[in-house]
């Protein structure tokens, strides 16, 4: 079974990163996520605690579909959404978070970094 699974993986085309990800930005974004307390509502794969359940789990952030179901999935939109989601998507149930624009861009990188599409 394992051999079969391994064979299937080997047959896949080489992974095609969707975004140019900067490891430093990803690390800064993760720091910002921890500091702002995003994990109070969202579960992240590499943050042990807390793993809040009030919002969707981001353990495999999908960079393919639209952000929060409506916004075109661009880094700019994602950064705007994590920083001030009611402004980026009127009616969003996620509140604005205390992030600087710079931190918001890093958080977007971090989220794309845990995407399932690589």
């Amino acid at each position, binding site marked *: 079974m394992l051999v079969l699974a391994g064979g299937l993986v080997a047959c896949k085309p080489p992974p095609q990163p969707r975004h140019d990800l900067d490891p430093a930005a990803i690390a800064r974004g993760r720091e*910002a996520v921890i*500091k*702002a*307390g*995003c994990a*109070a*509502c969202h579960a992240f794969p590499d943050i042990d605690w*807390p*793993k*809040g*359940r*009030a*919002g969707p789990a981001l353990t495999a952030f999908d960079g393919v579909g639209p952000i929060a179901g409506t916004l075109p999935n661009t880094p700019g939109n994602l950064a705007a959404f994590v920083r*001030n989601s*009611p*402004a980026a998507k009127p009616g969003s*149930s*996620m*509140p*604005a*978070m*205390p*992030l*600087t*624009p*710079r*931190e918001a861009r890093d958080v977007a990188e971090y989220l794309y970094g845990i995407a399932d599409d690589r």
Partner: protein
Amino acid sequence: MTDDAGAFDAWWGWPPPVLDPAGPYADSVTVLAWALFAMGVVVTLVVVAALYVALAGPARWKARLGGERSIWILGIAFPGVVLIGLLVWGLTLTASLTDAITGDEPRIRVTGHMWWFDVEYLDRQGRVVLRDANELHLPVGQPVVLELRSADVIHSFWVPNLSGKEDMVPGRTNLLKVQADRVGRFGGVCAEYCGGPHALMGFVTVAHGADDYRRWLTGERVATAPADPQAVPGVMPSATRRTPASATVTGLNGLNGQQVFMDSGCAACHRVEGTGANGMSGPDLTHVARRLSLGAGVLPNNRGTLIGWIADSQSIKPGNRMPTYNMLSADELEAIAIWLEQPR
């Protein structure tokens, strides 16, 4: 919104560093701790050396090590001298921990609950002038006396930067003198296992300059925010508080947060000064907006974490006594959060 100026500073001092004294009462304990570590290393080295000799040393050394003389020296004289010396020196070093209490020190009563700290600032007559939770504000360079109590089981109060541990025992008041010699935020923890989420029972100590401290105390009593929230340590950075001045009662979505708070039963456990909410079994929420942390020192305090905490505190701090309120809609949660954020 362009609030780059309000770069978020969420370092609220928790979990605390344990070997970084910030005042005289922590200083002596830290020196003693280092001395004990050092002696521990020396004794370990002696034991390892003796073990090596016993196993692989020359026969002459082995015989000497097994002789009566080495038992007298290494087994009785060495530990006797070292232990008595450390005891005398340690007692002298930490004598300041039992400094006489003059009665002139500001008094703050801290009561341990499962799993949070109730904090009451007392005036000279022992009356409560301000009730807060999970956060202790001190003037720099001045000894402060803490009246430590417990409402349920035995807890232990520990701010490693400021002093050693002191138990909080039901039915008893323990006094602990603390002093911070520098401005800063110092984390604290409950240092006695008290059940459930004991490991998530923390708090924050904020040491202010004398003027800042006075402004902090009086500012809260007259319910006016300081001119520049960034200037006073312990006050949330402006970036985290986005409520427009006009939204004092009504949430962004038109709901009345106070109404939702009352209707959801929050007032059964929480008190908010100036309203009908007078529950005493949970933390006082009058000044919750100005605290650095939520959930007793474990989360940074901003609208997002506040909403997440109200909605499902059990996923953040499993077993804590606040039920999950995930039946509330996002609008209702936000209305409560916005109402709680109002300065009082």
